[in-house]
């Protein structure tokens, strides 16, 4: 609100209406008070509406209700200890211990290690999945977990966190499996849902064989060479399962009704075939009579935990889901007991994760092929020491071929081929898992030991290899042929020697980060990009000796980025245009503003002169000296007006010059007196009337006419100046105007001057009358506004468009008239001119 809305801001005693007449009868203080009250009413009403709409009262009442019921629950608990607190669905914090205790009356609850184990223990007679008989009790475990969760989570009305149902189910299956293995490995027996679906092999003095499995009902024979594993096989601590079957196929049943994993917990797993006749192990959906390709309901897998594995000449396919440890073939351990083993001459096809290694030591993958894994081909997790991948092929993985995570040491990849993986062929993160003390108690030291030699990297999506934060890195005799990125070492220390790196377009070798300390020697880098061996981001300890980068074509990074993002160029260009346009518009607006200011000053001066003349013409009987007001000159005879005229002349000249007009135009005009004006007296001819010219009829003539005039006023951005600044003026005796009031033709005559003499004479041939038939032809008068010698904005606009060839929109903008209006005028004038 502006200050003049205040009652006192406008002078009430200056003669205008009083405060009472305006209705401003409320004092300042009461008004402020009432304003505050009104504002408060609105704010409260709006806040109330918003709160109600957002359901806040509902939530508040729920909260209050929760407190009330909790209080009453506590009361009843003190009254009688047998009260079933667990029956209150919205169990508050105080109700939880009693709730969980009372809900698990029959299970060995004292020994349960975790909440999910509680779920297993408290499961009330789980029902197997409808339809086919369950081959594993996973669903029962999940249901039990849900039941426990329901007792711990009061807010059942909350919107569920958005998750994919399939994803959630897979995660729950993994959790249920973990729970079961935890129970079994502690000898706590089976959860009820799994009874009859698991065959546990305790430690005996010999190795279990396929025959043992058949005898115990875990395996049924399909034909001579094919066996179906229908139950989960759990090899307990100290036991050994030895399955040797050249050319045989072991099908792990896996489908909608559950799946049968092969789990070794602290034991030994030996799988073997023969050369040319491997032992095939695959998941098997009995309903579809085909390998299980649906992971949403889980899929069979092989896991060795805290154990030993020896696999030779085996073909694994279509195994695993969701996590690394259930990913297909997994070697896991604990901080106190690592797994170990070797896999040789083996193919792993279409597993979730080809080989997962975590908390393991001395693992070797030799002469094997890992292909088409859903996720990584070989995933090396934390707490792993010494992994050798030798003479193997990892291809077609959905992530990186070999992915080494934080906390893995002494990894070597030798003589292998890593190709066609979606991310990198080899991705290694050796950076420390913690910078200081942490909950996990990790070492602040980074990982060390990465040997890559004799390998081939080709056709990987993101690049050949990327290594981060690793020490003792040695790339030797490596051949990398990639599209975008060859080899990236970030904050790593080591060497690259005798290798060849080839990229189509991008980075050959990138050494980045301040902790980098790398020697590059005897390496050939070919391709196109910013630089063959790029050193970036503060890397300074880089030694380059004997490298061959002659096959490298340098290209700018920006150029390559543009090539990779071709649309960006287009967008960029689109941005440039408005930027230039703005600059131009700004420049023109500034110039026009200056001209406008001058025009306004001239207009004010001319109007003031009009007023003075008017008063003078009426005589001193009307306006006494006391009538003098700001902006109005006292009427005091015509000779007193001369300084004013001069001021007007001065404005006009300035205007002309500001617009770049040649001074001589003005001086030429100064001499001009219009004969038509001579009947009016007194004559105060204001100079700057342009030379008289006929208004050209066609644009062609316009061009001819305006060509010689270079420095004219461009009020409209075009040469109109000879007339624009024509502020010439002859006064008309005001008395005459008052007395007459109408021209001889009976038409009213404009009291103010409206048509310039030049215009009048130039249009005397009737053409002008045709243009504006409705306009009365006033006696020869002169204009005194920024319109110049035109009798109307319309005339000016039409001349600017038709004669001066200015675009309609610019004329409209300059005159601040709608474009459509100008266009209409122009059309009308065209018709009138017969064009």
């Amino acid at each position, binding site marked *: 609100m502006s200050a003049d809305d205040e009652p006192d801001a406008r002078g009430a005693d200056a003669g*205008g209406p009083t405060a009472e007449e305006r209705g401003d009868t409320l004092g300042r203080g009461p008004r402020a008070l009432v304003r505050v009250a009104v504002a408060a009413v609105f704010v409260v009403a709006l806040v109330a509406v918003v709160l109600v709409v957002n359901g806040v009262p509902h939530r508040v009442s729920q909260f209050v209700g929760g407190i009330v019921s909790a209080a009453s629950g506590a009361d009843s608990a003190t009254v009688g200890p047998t009260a079933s607190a667990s029956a209150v669905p919205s169990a508050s914090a105080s109700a939880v211990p009693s709730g969980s205790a009372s809900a698990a009356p029959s299970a060995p609850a004292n020994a349960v290690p975790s909440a999910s184990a509680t779920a297993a223990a408290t499961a009330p007679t789980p029902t197997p999945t409808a339809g086919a008989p369950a081959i594993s009790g996973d669903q029962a475990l999940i249901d039990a977990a849900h039941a426990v969760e329901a007792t711990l989570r009061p807010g059942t009305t909350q919107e569920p966190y958005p998750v994919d149902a399939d994803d959630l189910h897979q995660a729950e299956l993994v959790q249920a499996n973990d729970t079961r293995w935890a129970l079994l490995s502690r000898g706590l027996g089976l959860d009820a849902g799994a009874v009859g679906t698991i065959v546990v092999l305790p430690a005996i003095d010999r190795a279990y064989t396929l025959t043992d499995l058949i005898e115990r009902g875990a395996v049924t024979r399909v034909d001579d060479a094919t066996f179906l594993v229908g139950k989960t096989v759990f090899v307990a601590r100290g036991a050994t399962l030895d399955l040797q079957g050249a050319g045989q196929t072991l099908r792990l049943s896996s489908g909608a009704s559950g799946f049968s994993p092969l789990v070794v917990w602290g034991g030994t797993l030996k799988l073997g075939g023969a050369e040319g006749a491997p032992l095939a192990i695959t998941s098997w959906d009995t309903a579809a009579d085909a390998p299980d390709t649906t992971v949403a309901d889980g899929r069979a897998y092989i896991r060795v935990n805290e154990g030993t594995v020896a696999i030779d000449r085996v073909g694994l396919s279509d195994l695993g889901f969701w996590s690394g440890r259930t990913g297909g073939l997994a070697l896991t351990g604990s901080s106190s007991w690592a797994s170990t083993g070797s896999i040789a001459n083996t193919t792993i096809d279409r597993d979730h994760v080809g080989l997962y290694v975590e908390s393991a030591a001395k693992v070797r993958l030799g002469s094997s092929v890992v292909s088409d894994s859903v996720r990584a081909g070989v995933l090396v997790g934390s707490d792993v020491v010494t992994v050798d991948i030798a003479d193997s092929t990892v291809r077609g993985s959905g992530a990186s071929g070999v992915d080494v995570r934080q906390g893995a040491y002494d990894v070597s990849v030798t003589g292998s081929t890593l190709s066609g993986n979606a991310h990198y062929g080899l991705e290694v993160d050796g950076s420390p898992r913690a910078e200081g003390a942490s909950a996990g108690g990790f070492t602040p030291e980074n990982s060390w030991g990465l040997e890559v030699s004799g390998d081939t990297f080709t056709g990987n999506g993101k690049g050949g290899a990327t290594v981060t934060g690793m020490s003792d890195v040695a790339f030797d005799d490596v051949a990398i042929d990639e599209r975008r990125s060859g080899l990236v070492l970030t904050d790593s220390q080591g060497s690259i020697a005798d290798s060849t790196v080839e990229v189509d377009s991008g980075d050959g070798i990138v050494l980045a980060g301040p902790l980098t300390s790398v020697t590059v020697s005897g390496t050939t880098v070919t391709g196109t990009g910013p630089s063959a061996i790029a050193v970036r981001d503060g890397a300074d300890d880089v030694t380059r000796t004997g490298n061959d980068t002659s096959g490298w074509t340098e290209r700018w990074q920006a150029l390559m980025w543009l090539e990779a993002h071709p649309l960006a160029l287009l967008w960029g260009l689109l941005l440039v245009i408005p930027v230039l346009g703005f600059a131009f518009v700004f420049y023109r607006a500034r110039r026009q503003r200056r001209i406008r200011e001058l025009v306004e000053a001239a207009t004010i001066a001319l109007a003031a002169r009009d007023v003075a003349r008017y008063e003078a013409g009426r005589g001193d009987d009307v306006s006494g000296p006391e009538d003098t007001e700001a902006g109005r000159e006292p009427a005091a005879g015509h000779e007193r007006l001369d300084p004013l005229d001069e001021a007007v002349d001065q404005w006009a000249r300035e205007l002309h010059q500001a617009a770049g007009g040649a001074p001589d135009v003005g001086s030429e005009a100064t001499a001009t007196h219009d004969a038509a004006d001579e009947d009016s007296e007194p004559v105060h001819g204001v100079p700057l009337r342009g030379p008289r010219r006929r208004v050209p009829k066609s644009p062609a003539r316009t061009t001819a006419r305006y060509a010689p005039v270079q420095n004219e006023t461009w009020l409209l951005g075009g040469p109109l100046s000879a007339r624009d600044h024509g502020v010439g003026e002859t006064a008309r005796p005001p008395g005459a105007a008052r007395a007459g009031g109408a021209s001889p033709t009976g038409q009213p005559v404009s009291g103010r001057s409206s048509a310039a003499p030049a215009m009048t004479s130039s249009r005397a041939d009737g053409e002008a009358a045709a243009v504006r038939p409705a306009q009365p032809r006033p006696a020869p008068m002169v204009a005194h506004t920024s319109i110049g010698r035109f009798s109307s904005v319309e005339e000016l606009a039409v001349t600017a468009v038709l004669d001066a060839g200015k675009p309609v929109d610019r004329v409209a903008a300059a005159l601040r*008239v709608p474009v459509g209006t100008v266009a209409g005028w122009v059309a009308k004038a065209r018709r009138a001119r017969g064009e």
Partner: protein
Amino acid sequence: MPSDLSSFLDDLGRTIMWLLPFGVFGIVSWSFWLVRKLISASTKPVVNDFRTTTTVVVPSYREDPEVLLRCLAGWRRQKPSRIVIVLDLADVEAQRRIEALGHPDVEVIMFKHRGKRSALGVGIRAADTELVVLVDSDTAWEDGMLAAIQMPFIDSAVGAVSTRQNVYLPKTSTWRRVADWIIDQRYYDYAPAMGRFGGVICASGRTSAYRREIILPKLPDLEHEIFLGKECVAGDDGRLTWLVLSEGYRVTHQDSARALSMFPDTFRAFVKQRVRWSRNSYRCYLTAIRRGWIFRVPFISQITVMQILFTPVSMAIALVYIFHSLTAPLPWLAFSMALLWAFVGRGIRGISHLWRRPEDIVILPLVTGITALVALPIKLFALFTMNTQGWLTRSADSVGGEGQSEATLVARAGDGAVGAGRER
């Protein structure tokens, strides 16, 4: 008990959720309002030293001489070049009293009125100055009105300037307070926004200024406007405004030029005035559309014209929503919430007036009702009786406008500090 309460509140929340948006129409209408409000709030009056010759033209028909002379004194104080008062032949009392003053710059023309338009034509033809300021005979000027109204004319594309008006002695009648509220809304929220783009769609006739040379050739169109075969009597201001707009000139609003005008103090006269204005606006805007002038004005003016024409429709939709709330799960609650929202919404739209005159919050329900009354029945009635010509509030056998004579301001007779006396 708590669950009962929570389900009750839940229902309440749903009900309001269902009602609050008032449909797409509400959103559209509110966003137009907001845009215009923002533009209006950011539009500042033109300030410069442009002063030129001005003739004040006052058509006066059976005006209470007291009112006329009081206003005349106010106009003279601002020193226009001339004042031309066009009286009806029967207004001899006023003629005698004005001429008795002996002001040489005040000219009285006796003329047999054939409606306000004819008187305006006579007055404008009699003027010989750059600008003519058309003033109603019962309109008083705030200080600096005449200076301020000239300022926008520095732009030669400006053909007319509208002024900000309020109600004279608003506290003498509830109906005047209501009128003051409604008119404030127009000048706070609408006129400046349209004036900024040179497209004020009606420079109210109570006080407005025109470039004489523009309207002079258009006087026949003003005096003899034929709408569906009938010559128009009222609605001179809208007609003149559109005649100027149709020539491509800008019509701007000068918020610093302020005037106070007499408004009726009875409900009957209030309604009559609204009916007349509604008819005028329908005729005026339909003519503008028919002649294609609507396409020469800025977009914001086009939108405003459309909104004015469709006011009955939008108000009908709003009312339908309000009454449809009776079918909600909690009918009476929903209905009262809808009504409450109607009041609050009206208050928000009138927030500028409420800021200026916060004590008017007490007439908020009345204003809400009157707005609905004007927007639906009155406008609808006006729509179907559009071509009924007549002034309704002024007649040959009474002095002053109905409910607008000096006598209606009785409360003023006291010590001068009254005005609102009747309300208190």
